[in-house]
């Protein structure tokens, strides 16, 4: 399927390159790191992103492809299709109910939700999770085959419908940075010959199994808000236990299928400026189909009894936060967010706690014309641990920037989610150039 996606990207990009006046831009990013405190390894990479764009009248084509070598990736070198899209705007009227209709098709990239570091609604696109805790969400997103129609009813008002024929395929193959419980499954597969974790994402899926999405966005009393509905494949897989036989503990049998499941999600978000603060928030409620892993012992027992080691639960996630660009002193940027994940009617056999609470903070200050910028990001995973990311960045010239920083983390080694990141403190240097 990846081969088809590449072909698809080139089918879109070649006409763009053939057009007079097309835009072709590149970003080169070099990333080098060194472990500060034990751990397995961090990341060293060289990445070139090519972006080709063209606009002819109201038709727009955009293709963005990453070509890279990376120590956190399985095969070298490789490519990722971030986007390969076509859009066309049909102007309907200047003052009628519907101002314009926008058709879009291709490997599209969506941005759902209005929060910053934590975005609970942004689940349409598959993600590149091989460097999961350290890449921002926009860096992680991969294009997903989709067809969209948006009716614009004003500058800030629109209704958008999207059809997504295939499940997105999230890249999560770097075992060093997987959630610990997931990494343990792969480790078991290396120890026991009859224990296997298998990816089941299928290239050919039934077209009668579409994912559908609707979004309404508007502004009222100066508040931007949106309503969301999604019926379709979640962008993260679950692990389904099958063929389980632990009658011989020395050589147990299990086939664990990594599969994507359909969920029904309702959402709402808002963004409002109040004085010198901008407040943002979003809520996602999974009313159906969201499944959670059981702990390993419970999963085995469940699978032995005919289950699959998972439980479907209703799930609530919300984020609220604010930012201020002149906090206390001019140009000091502060962003604070508070988030909770709540499994409704929680079951004690589940790996995930009934309530997870996360707080994030980001502080930045740019000296002079941001020639030197100090940044500090911090995430507090209540009762589980924390991570901090101090960085100083330098603007070498208009196209080149240098960043030097560190990721510092403290988690319980046994934590099923973040245990993999305990003792993985590392320093890094990154250089980016645009042309």
């Amino acid at each position: 399927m990846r081969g088809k996606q590449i072909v698809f990207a080139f089918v879109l990009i070649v006409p763009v390159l053939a057009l007079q006046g097309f835009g072709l831009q590149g970003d080169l990013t070099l990333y080098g790191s060194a472990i500060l405190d034990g751990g397995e390894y961090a990341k060293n990479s060289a990445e070139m992103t090519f972006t080709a764009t063209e606009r002819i009248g109201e038709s727009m084509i955009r293709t963005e492809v990453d070509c890279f070598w990376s120590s956190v990736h399985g095969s070298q070198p490789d490519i990722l299709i971030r986007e390969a899209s076509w859009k066309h705007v049909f102007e309907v009227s200047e003052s009628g109910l519907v101002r314009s209709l926008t058709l879009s098709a291709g490997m599209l990239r969506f941005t759902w939700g209005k929060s910053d570091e934590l975005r609970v609604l942004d689940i349409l696109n598959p993600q590149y999770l091989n460097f999961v805790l350290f890449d921002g969400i926009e860096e992680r997103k991969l294009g997903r085959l989709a067809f969209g129609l948006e009716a614009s009813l004003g500058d800030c008002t629109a209704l958008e419908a999207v059809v997504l024929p295939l499940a997105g395929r999230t890249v999560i193959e770097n075992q060093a940075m997987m959630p610990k419980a997931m990494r343990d499954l792969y480790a078991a597969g290396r120890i026991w010959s009859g224990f296997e974790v298998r990816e089941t994402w299928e290239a050919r899926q039934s077209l009668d199994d579409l994912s559908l999405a609707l979004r309404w966005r508007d502004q009222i009393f100066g508040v931007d808000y949106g309503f969301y509905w999604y019926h379709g494949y979640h962008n993260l897989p679950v692990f389904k236990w099958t063929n389980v036989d632990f009658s011989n503990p020395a050589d147990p049998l299990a086939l664990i299928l990594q599969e994507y499941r359909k969920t029904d999600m309702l959402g709402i978000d808002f963004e409002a400026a109040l004085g010198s603060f901008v407040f943002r928030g979003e809520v996602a409620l999974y009313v159906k189909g969201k499944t959670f892993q059981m702990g390993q012992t419970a999963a085995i027992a469940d699978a032995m009894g005919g289950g699959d080691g998972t439980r479907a639960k209703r799930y609530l996630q919300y984020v609220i936060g604010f930012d201020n660009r002149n906090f206390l002193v001019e140009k000091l940027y502060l962003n604070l967010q508070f988030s909770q994940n709540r499994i409704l009617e929680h079951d004690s056999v589940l790996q995930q706690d009934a309530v997870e609470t996360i707080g994030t903070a980001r502080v930045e200050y740019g000296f002079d014309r941001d020639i030197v910028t100090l940044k500090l990001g911090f995430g507090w995973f209540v009762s589980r641990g924390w991570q901090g990311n101090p960085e100083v960045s330098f603007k070498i010239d208009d196209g080149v920037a240098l960043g030097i920083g560190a990721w510092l983390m403290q988690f319980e080694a046994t934590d099923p989610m973040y245990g993999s990141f305990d003792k993985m403190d590392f320093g890094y240097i990154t250089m980016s150039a645009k042309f």
Partner: protein
Amino acid sequence: MKRTLVFAAAVTLISAGLLPGADTLTGYQIARKVKSANEANTTQVTAQLKLFSSVSATAPAETRSVSMKSKKIGDGLKKHVFRFTDSRYRGTTFLSLDNAGSDTTFYLYLNTVGRPRRLSSGEKQNQFIDTDFTNEELGGFDLDDYTYDRIADIQYNGKPHYRVWCHKKDQSAKFPKFLAIVDPEKSVIVKVSVYNKAGRIEKVGTFSDVRLVGGKYWVPFSMRVEDKIRNHASEIRISVVDVDRAVSDTYFRPQSMNNPW
């Protein structure tokens, strides 16, 4: 704020000739003229933004290409969008939507964020990215944010010009006042001196090379702002202006801020 007036006037091609009896105009009437007289129904501008590392530097430290579009939506009201088209900031897009009777709404699109972000009204006088221009100067100012006092005319470039003090109503503003010098014939601000809270001139804007575009709009093709305290300057040099040609509304929608131009 005065500078805001000037910049907005320049960038959006405001202003036109004054009416007979202009000498009796009040400060508010002059400000209103500057904001609306030269405003075309639509404007599309291609320009170079130059950043100078010192006020006295003759060669820019950085040069970026920018593109701007604006559309008139009412008397003194407009939609305006500004985009860097090259450099490390390429794709960074700034949108302002004037609202009758309420604050202008600002959005900023950054590639790293992936969606338009609202800016607070408190950020109007923040620097736009790393330039010496403020968000308000690039996006346009609300006439009602200020009070205006006309003072004695002066000779500027050998001709009489109006002078208007513009006082920000918001007492906590970073730049509480500015003095604008206005060309009475073209209704274009030619110079502003922007004062900080300490009462010192922090920035000086000069607007020159004023040309008639489309046969009826006076546009300064050069806009330079000098930061007298930090000793650096920014300059926008317009290369192409196209007025009164149809511009799609899709350029001015927050959800379209990442579309190719």
